């Protein structure tokens, strides 16, 4: 949620509360007046209260919409801190597009299964690391 959105939420809540109380007061006075005199001139809510309610509503809707931020991703393996963004507020649903983000940030969507110790081929990994180590030893010598 952005700072603008938080501010708008706070302001719109205050405006709506104030306008609600103003409307309550007006209707309360109207009831008292109608009890005392048979003729009541005002029936409608005064314009300033109406406008305040409208402003509160618009600010609230704006707060909801500004709470959306463009989606950003931090690649898992890169260290330069470059953030990737496709410029969308929502995630694309087509699988061939949805996997783009996983590829860009280097995330494996099947990682839960692929990296589970029981499923990892330990012997292949050991062989790989032994080869790497022996190659490095040769180079050092």
């Amino acid at each position, binding site marked *: 949620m952005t700072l603008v959105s938080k501010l708008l939420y706070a302001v719109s809540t205050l405006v709506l509360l104030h306008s609600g109380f103003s409307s309550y007061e007006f*209707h309360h006075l109207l009831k008292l007046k109608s009890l005392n005199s048979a003729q009541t001139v005002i029936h409608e809510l005064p314009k300033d209260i109406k406008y305040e309610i409208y402003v509160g509503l618009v600010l609230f809707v704006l707060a909801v*919409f500004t709470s959306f931020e463009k989606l950003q991703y931090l690649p898992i393996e890169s260290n330069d801190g470059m953030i990737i963004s496709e410029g969308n507020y929502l995630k694309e649903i087509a699988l061939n597009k949805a996997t783009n983000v996983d590829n860009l940030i280097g995330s494996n969507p099947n990682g839960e299964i692929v990296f589970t110790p029981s499923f990892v081929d330990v012997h292949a990994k050991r062989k790989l690391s032994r080869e790497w180590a022996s190659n490095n030893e040769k180079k050092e010598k």
Partner: protein
Amino acid sequence: MSANEEVFSQINATVNVVDNKKRLLFVQDSCALVLGLVAGFLQIESVNGFLWFLALYNLTNIVYIVWICQLQPGKFYQSPLQDIFFGSFFRELTGFVMAWTFGYALIG
């Protein structure tokens, strides 16, 4: 495009579909409740209240399509018209009526 590629391009990522629907529901839920509250504050009665809801609920959805979907709702929803306008219509209508009666009783 081969037949396989065509079939593959029609597959959707379920996680993203659900995530986008949740975001839309948050917008619709909060807007419907505040619309109801405001209708109560304005002491709107009878069919005018439902017209108020219909007009502003659809306006909010249009703003959602323009602002959040960037005029490409098809990229984010399987069937945009159904998902955005009709999918949760009765859910929002009941929420609106609840907030409307609450606001009306509070003020009146």
